[in-house]
């Protein structure tokens, strides 16, 4: 219906209309379309294309060569880093799924108590920047001094630590503890759509609650679980801060820390580009596998026939589920946050918890004396806000054109807007560096480079959000306005825009928050005047002063919480957790 109408409006204007009017009617959308194509090419296609080309260039001369690939993959250590990254990605994604799926099921389908608390846990883990969580976990699970291990030794008299954060398991767990909200959001919103009737049917046929869950509810949301798994995998292999902070002491070299080495003097962007290429292949392979696995079965859980959704009564088991959620909350949020806060108010962290060890000096230093701290907070806010605005506006226009099928090949736009989703952030950053840092644009060290990279990196989030917002608005309302004589852009402004405003604001805030904690893209692109909070935190982490580092982390959380608070006020309590 909408398709037919939309096409007729654009493609076959009424006869006997003057050429000028015809152009007047068609041009705005076509122009917009061309502009959007240009913007997406600039943000997504060109940096990646450039990265691909650069990987075949000789440094200095630009002549064709394959030697970059030889250098990049010519040493066992470099290949080992790739293997480590992939293994780590799989491990973290698996842990994240194990943590998150029971939580999502319990919150969505059951009468578990403390759902509000579970929301808070997920939200908390989502806004805690990964490297800050990593520092928290070093304080908690350092093999000799970590609180957990000290307690364990005291309790059991054991010689060996309970859990060593400087290990592959430690690294994988710390990453998963930060990334599981992504799986939770995906799986919970999918479970929300499964109607109780399907579980009822299983129950009637003799299946208990657990069998119904195992055989009916979970298989139905299998696509969401896989999507969550893949996104955590991608986030993990793109992560820089946590592998640098935990991976180096644990002697685990990964792709991102190896890429960093290629940026040592002399800067070898060409080798870095060649090194990054196979990552794209791996990602493409994962997406293809996902398609293959999902194509064999049907996963339709939403039909036009209503469908009741009622919580499953778990009885005593609901406390078991609650304990699981509480445990995840403890290890993902409460414990790391507590040790960080303690360190941030400590004069000498080595002296532990005591009243005479309390001070505000670390905060005072950062707020009033530090040359960069306040500048970096301001940079973070305005870079992230501008990037979020660009991403949401661009995504909104693309989503509108694609969903209303205003132009032929609109799907191309949609594809480009979603493409950064499958590109590790660090590869994206190197692409931006290769494409725009040097002349003619010479954007290196400018705010524009970081803003554009952030906008491109988080465009898929904004697009998914805008797309579902636009889809939720039936075209008939616009059509009514247009029948009454309104132009398309006027109709959008007066009717569609007000209707999608709220969910767009939600999307804007999510992009803002993830951009404000982004490190792996920023670390390759910052200049002296454009350092963001995350980069400064990283710099502070190697300054031998965890007290100040923790205090700066505290400031970062305060900034984020202010924006989360605004979001909750304007959009609703669960704005970050609705699947966009």
């Amino acid at each position: 219906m909408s398709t037919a109408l939309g096409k007729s409006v654009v493609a076959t204007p009424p006869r006997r209309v003057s050429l000028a009017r015809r152009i007047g009617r068609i041009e705005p959308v076509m122009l917009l379309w061309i502009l959007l194509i240009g913007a997406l090419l600039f943000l997504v296609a060109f940096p990646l294309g450039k990265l691909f080309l650069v990987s075949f260039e000789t440094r200095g001369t630009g002549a064709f060569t394959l030697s970059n690939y030889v250098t990049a993959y010519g040493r066992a250590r470099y290949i080992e880093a790739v293997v480590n990254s992939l293994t780590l990605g799989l491990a973290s994604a698996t842990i994240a799924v194990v943590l998150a799926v029971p939580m999502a099921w319990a919150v969505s389908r059951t009468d578990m108590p403390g759902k509000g608390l579970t929301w808070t846990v997920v939200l908390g883990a989502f806004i805690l920047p990964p490297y800050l969580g990593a520092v928290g976990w070093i304080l908690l699970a350092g093999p000799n001094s970590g609180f957990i291990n000290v307690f364990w030794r005291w309790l059991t008299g054991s010689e060996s630590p309970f859990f060593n954060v400087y290990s592959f398991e430690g690294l994988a767990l710390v990453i998963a503890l930060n990334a599981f909200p992504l799986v939770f959001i995906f799986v919970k919103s999918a479970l929300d759509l499964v109607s109780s009737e399907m579980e009822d049917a299983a129950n009637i046929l003799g299946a208990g609650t657990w069998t119904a869950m195992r055989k009916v509810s979970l298989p139905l949301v299998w696509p969401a679980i896989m999507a969550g798994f893949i996104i955590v995998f991608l986030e993990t292999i793109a992560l820089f801060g946590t592998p640098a902070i935990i991976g180096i002491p644990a002697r685990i070299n990964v792709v991102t820390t190896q890429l960093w080495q290629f940026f040592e003097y002399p800067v070898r962007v060409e080798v870095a580009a060649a090194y990054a290429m196979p990552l794209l292949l791996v990602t493409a392979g994962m997406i293809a596998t996902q398609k293959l696995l999902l194509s064999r079965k049907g996963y339709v859980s939403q039909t036009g026939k209503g469908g009741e959704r009622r919580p499953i009564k778990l009885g005593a088991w609901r406390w078991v589920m609650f304990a699981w959620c509480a445990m995840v909350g403890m290890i993902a949020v409460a414990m790391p946050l507590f040790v960080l806060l303690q360190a941030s108010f400590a004069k000498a962290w080595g002296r532990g918890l005591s009243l005479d060890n309390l001070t505000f000096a670390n905060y005072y230093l950062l707020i009033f004396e530090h040359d960069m701290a306040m500048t970096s907070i301001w940079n973070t806010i305005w870079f992230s806000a501008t990037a979020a605005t660009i991403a949401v506006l661009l995504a909104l226009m693309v989503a509108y054109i694609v969903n209303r099928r205003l132009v032929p090949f609109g799907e191309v736009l949609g594809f480009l807007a979603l493409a950064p989703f499958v590109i590790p952030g660090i590869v994206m950053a190197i692409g931006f560096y290769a494409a725009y840092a040097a002349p003619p644009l010479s954007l290196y060290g400018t705010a524009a480079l970081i803003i554009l990279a952030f906008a491109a990196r988080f465009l898929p989030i904004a697009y998914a959000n805008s797309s579902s917002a636009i889809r939720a608005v039936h075209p008939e309302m616009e059509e009514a306005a247009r029948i009454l004589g309104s132009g398309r852009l006027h109709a959008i402004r007066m009717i569609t825009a007000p209707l999608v405003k709220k969910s767009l604001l939600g999307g804007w805030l999510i992009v803002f928050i993830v951009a404000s904690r982004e490190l792996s893209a920023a670390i390759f692109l910052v200049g002296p005047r454009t350092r963001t909070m995350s980069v400064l935190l990283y710099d502070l982490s190697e300054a031998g002063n965890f007290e100040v580092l923790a205090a700066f982390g505290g400031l970062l959380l305060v900034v984020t919480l202010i924006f989360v608070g605004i979001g909750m006020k304007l959009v609703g309590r669960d704005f970050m957790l609705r699947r966009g």
Partner: protein
Amino acid sequence: MKLTLTKRQLLSVATGAAVGGPAFRAAAQTLPAHEKALYDAAKAEGELTWYSGQYNAESSEAMGRAFNDRFPGVHCNVVRSTSQVAFQRLSQDTRAGVRQCDVFSSTNSGHFTQLKREGKLTQYTPVNAAGMLPSIQNVDPDGYFHTSFLGLFLMIHNTQLVSEANAPKSWADALDPKWRNQLAVGHPGFSGAIGVWAVQMRKMYGWDYFTKLERNKPLIGRSSQDPVTTLNSGERSVGLCVPVGTTALAMSRGNPLKLIYPTEGVLATISPSAIPSNAPHPNAAKLFMEFQASKAGSEAVRDYYNEPLRGDVAPAPGARPLSEITLLAPSIAEQETGVPEVREAWRDTFGI
């Protein structure tokens, strides 16, 4: 956040009026002629950007503030990181054809001979350098770079975990198997000083030093300062090649640390600063080079427990005088060729 920003601005305006005003007049009156001339030229440029891997974050920030106080109207942007990272940023700038850095300071002297050979440095000898300790003057006969940091790197121990009597006495002692899982050290891929130290150890003991060190499974961080944090927490008990300044600062806050002066000698990084030839604010850069060599500059870093560069500035309380210490320092040529070699060898030996 807006509130804190405004507060900070208010504060700086307030101090500017209350303190900066008279201080400015006082400073302007007492400035020597050569500084006065540079200051006048630098005011038109308004700022400079300092890439530094030498002093720790607190000292670098203090240096920047002291400069700003002495020369109101010229602001020093402090960009502190590890030395290899600072050099990496400078290389990225060059590669991208961007001019950002006005003064470059690194603990790896090899960086400077390399930049000098490539014609990327400005020739400038600070007048104030004549007042520095004679032994650290004229590191470059052509005057392209000058000492701005006299870093002493030694061993430290956590006093709660290891008594002074039991602590290792020499660099070689650290190889004793009884220190297995007890040691902490930085990484030459990040820290310039660790690179220089590795060159020195290799010179004294051969690379064997590090294959033996690996058997003791040291906890490897990035910066040479990382062991300070690791020892503060009690995660490890002995740190190798740790700067005196950061340790003394942590000790002054009450952390349970103590310095060990190894019997072979203390690693001294006599590290220079230079002005890149494409520095966007050349006069401000020269003024900052003068400041680093001046009495005021040495006093600023001394207050954070660093070695003063001049004889007319008293060392930090409790510091052992230079005359009583054996200094170990590879030559600049050894550093330039040696550091990249040990960096690779390190990665092969330690796997990271």
